[in-house]
């Protein structure tokens, strides 16, 4: 665990993160590292705490204990500061601003950059990644299809020019063919130098895309390693498909 | 007992009856109303008109006052209580003001804005205290019964409660009707206590005062509503020499309670939790 990044530098580090909602403990001591230029995925079933992890990094929920560090500097406890520090999130369920146009949604993504001249360039960059968005530039976001909304949500998060892009379930509710498109674009985005941390239920897709992976189960990391290893490891399927109970049976069925 | 003390106790009883009504609606059913003074007005005017113009004895007249308030609450409640949250709060202001305007403009019956004088002083201490005790017992029993639990269920989660088989719309209306009855009776007693009523006594400020007391005492606590009434009525008496500060204090109480302790003095607990369910002690 000591040197996951080897030669590369650690860009984002989560250290012993705890989060509770009232009496409900959602995260109990999550630690992980994301290296410069990497795609890291966190997989786990419904209710494992994946979205809570994303929201805690973004300071949308209170980090009860532990910290999140970006290039040696702790991320602040206010969401707008986190975005300014260089982390942005494409949230679960996309959450595009339905009554705003595609262009306005993208401009909202660049809000933290103020009057930065690079915004116009980045708009073109996002349109080059997702040409469908350019075709629908003046359309209300609410009228887009699910896949287009997901593209918009990712594009919007990219408009903040983040050092780390967080993605919360980009495959949620999308048809396989669209998921494939989106994951292909994610690889391209990564190739252009954006470090990505994504949480996914669609474990196979996420592991195929990422370099390294973590398995989250009821608020704790239970396994980690290079994605290829995780993918080959039969227990993983059981871990994210279920609580591990009766794992042998399921694993057999799926192998 | 001096007349002054007696007056304060009567006033306490009247305010407490109205506060219990509002507490059931706001604290237990989760409906925020800003028009409950109108139900007091209906009770007060009905009783005054019945006793003076029709020679009815004060006791049935007070009951009628309560019943008129219930009927109006029903007519108003059925259509408007479908609305949730702020919509109902605004509707209740509108309805409250409309009732007050009708009382002001219906000269032939209500004698208009100048008020209705000459009401029998039927609200003596035994009458006020007796009615208060009966209504208080009824209210405490009610919140510890099926209906009380149904109200709280609607307040906490109306979707879940409708899926647990509660007709939430009906529970909201019935809760409004009961609270209107309590306010109607309180209004009737107020008329008998002051011997004079006037539409302006039942304006939005009065409604706010009722809510302030309940919020201060604790939303979801009936004994809190009584405690709130006691504290606020007595403080008001203390501040009588500087009465222009009275409303300022009401307002400040609302804000401060919401900021510091939104659950009020009592939270949603009762002062004497054994009132809740006598047989539960052995459990």
């Amino acid at each position, binding site marked *: 665990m000591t040197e996951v990044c080897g030669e590369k530098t650690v860009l984002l580090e989560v250290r012993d993160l705890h989060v509770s909602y009232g009496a409900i403990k959602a995260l109990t001591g999550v630690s992980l590292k994301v290296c410069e230029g990497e795609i890291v995925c966190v997989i786990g079933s419904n209710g494992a705490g994946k979205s809570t992890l994303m929201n805690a990094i973004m300071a*949308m929920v209170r980090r009860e204990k532990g910290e999140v560090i970006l290039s040696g500097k702790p991320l602040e406890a206010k*969401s*707008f500061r986190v*975005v*300014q520090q260089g982390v*942005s*999130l494409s*949230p679960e369920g996309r*959450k595009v*601003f*339905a*009554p*705003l146009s595609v262009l*306005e949604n993208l*401009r*909202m*993504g660049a*809000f*933290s950059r*103020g*009057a930065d001249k690079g915004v116009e360039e980045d708009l073109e960059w996002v349109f080059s990644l997702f040409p469908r968005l350019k075709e629908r530039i003046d359309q209300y976001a609410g009228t887009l299809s699910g896949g287009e909304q997901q593209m918009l949500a990712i594009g*919007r998060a990219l408009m*903040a020019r983040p050092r780390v892009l967080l993605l919360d379930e980009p495959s949620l509710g999308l048809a396989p063919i669209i998921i494939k498109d989106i994951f292909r674009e994610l690889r391209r985005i990564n190739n252009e130098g954006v470090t990505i941390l994504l949480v996914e239920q669609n474990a196979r897709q996420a592991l195929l895309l990422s370099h390294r992976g973590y398995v989250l189960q009821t608020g704790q990391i239970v396994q980690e390693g290079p994605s290829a290893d995780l993918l080959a490891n039969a227990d993983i399927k059981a871990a994210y498909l279920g609580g591990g109970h009766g794992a042998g049976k399921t694993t057999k069925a799926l192998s | 007992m001096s007349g002054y003390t007696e007056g304060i106790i009567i006033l306490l009883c009247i305010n407490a009856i109205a506060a219990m009504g509002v507490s059931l609606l706001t604290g237990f059913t*989760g409906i*925020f109303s*800003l028009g409950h003074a109108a139900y007091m007005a209906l009770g007060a005017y009905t009783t005054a008109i019945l006793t003076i113009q029709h020679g009815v004895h004060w006791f049935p007249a007070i009951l009628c006052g309560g019943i008129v308030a219930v009927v109006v609450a029903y007519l108003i409640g059925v*259509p*408007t209580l*479908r*609305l949730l*949250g*702020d*919509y109902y709060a*605004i*509707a209740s*202001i*509108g*309805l409250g*003001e*409309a009732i007050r*305007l009708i009382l002001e*403009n219906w000269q032939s019956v209500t004698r208009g804005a100048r008020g209705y004088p000459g009401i029998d002083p039927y609200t003596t201490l035994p009458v006020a205290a007796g009615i208060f005790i009966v209504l208080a017992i009824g209210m405490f029993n009610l919140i510890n019964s099926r209906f009380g639990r149904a109200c709280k269920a609607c307040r906490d989660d109306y979707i879940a409660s409708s899926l647990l088989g509660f007709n939430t719309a009906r529970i909201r209306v019935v809760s409004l009707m009961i609270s209107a009855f309590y306010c109607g009776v309180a209004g009737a007693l107020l008329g008998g206590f002051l011997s004079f009523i006037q539409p302006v006594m039942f304006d*939005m*400020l009065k409604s*706010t005062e009722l*809510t302030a007391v309940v*919020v201060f005492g604790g939303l979801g606590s009936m004994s809190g509503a009584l405690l709130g009434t006691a504290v606020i009525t007595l403080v008001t008496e203390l501040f009588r020499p500087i009465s*222009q*500060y009275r*409303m*300022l204090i*009401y*307002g*400040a109480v*609302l*804000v*401060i309670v*919401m*900021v510091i302790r*939104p659950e009020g003095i009592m939270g949603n607990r009762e002062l004497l939790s054994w009132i809740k369910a006598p047989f539960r002690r052995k459990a």
Partner: protein
Amino acid sequence: MGTLLQQIINGLSLGSVYALIAVGYSLVYSILLFSNFAHGGFLVIGGYICYGILKTFGTNIWLAGGLSLAGAGIAAVLTERLAYRPIRERTNVTLYLLIASMGMSIVIENIFVIVAGGRFRALPPVIPTAPINFFGFATTSAFDLLSLVSAVVFLGALQLFLLKTRWGLAIRAAAYDLRTAGLMGVNVNRLISIVFFVAGALAAVGGIFLSVRYTLYPQLGAITIKAFVAAVIGGLGSLPGAVVGSLILGLAEMLTAGFISSQMRDLVVFSMLVITLLVKPTGLFGKSVSEKV
């Protein structure tokens, strides 16, 4: 015919003042989803600042008006910071905000009762009220036209702000989803302060015109109830709804006063509220919101 035209102009003028108040109220509602009952207080603060400055420093309406707008805006921001923010940060129960705003409304009103006294005060005659003749058809007052024009100017400015600026965009986004707007790097607390400032300043404009129309007194804020009604008729949280609802209400009031009886106008207002709530509870432009199960 002449009377009708005249009442229509008066109605639109009154409606446009309601619109200034209703739009600010609706704007706050769209972001925080609670009815800010203290909104009427901002109007009164604006009115008294204007009155005070006109009385003390002579009759420069531009200075008095500007300071009045700024003062009411700042008062609104302070109200939010002191009373609402601590509640917002602790809970998402909007009922608590509603009750606190009721309290703030009473506090503001009674501060003026104590400090300025309950007297009715007339603003010095800085706004012309001379009658103006309309091609011989009707006469209306310069004041009515002026309040109509001012409302159009201020609402137009608001519209430009919302459509053309970065913060305006953020406000529109936040009106749809405040949480997600926060994810975009918007300082949500600052955004809310801006919204309250704008709402307070617009209320002050309404307050100045209302104090000319009805004189100034601490309970003048009670008139916001009509703006609330207008906002509900138009659809809570919708800005075009607030404007349309206000104009309808202003017209209804003036036509009732002109052709039926002046005592009936408030009753008409409240019956319109009831009818709207019965027929289309979400108002003319409102969206129905359903909770996720």
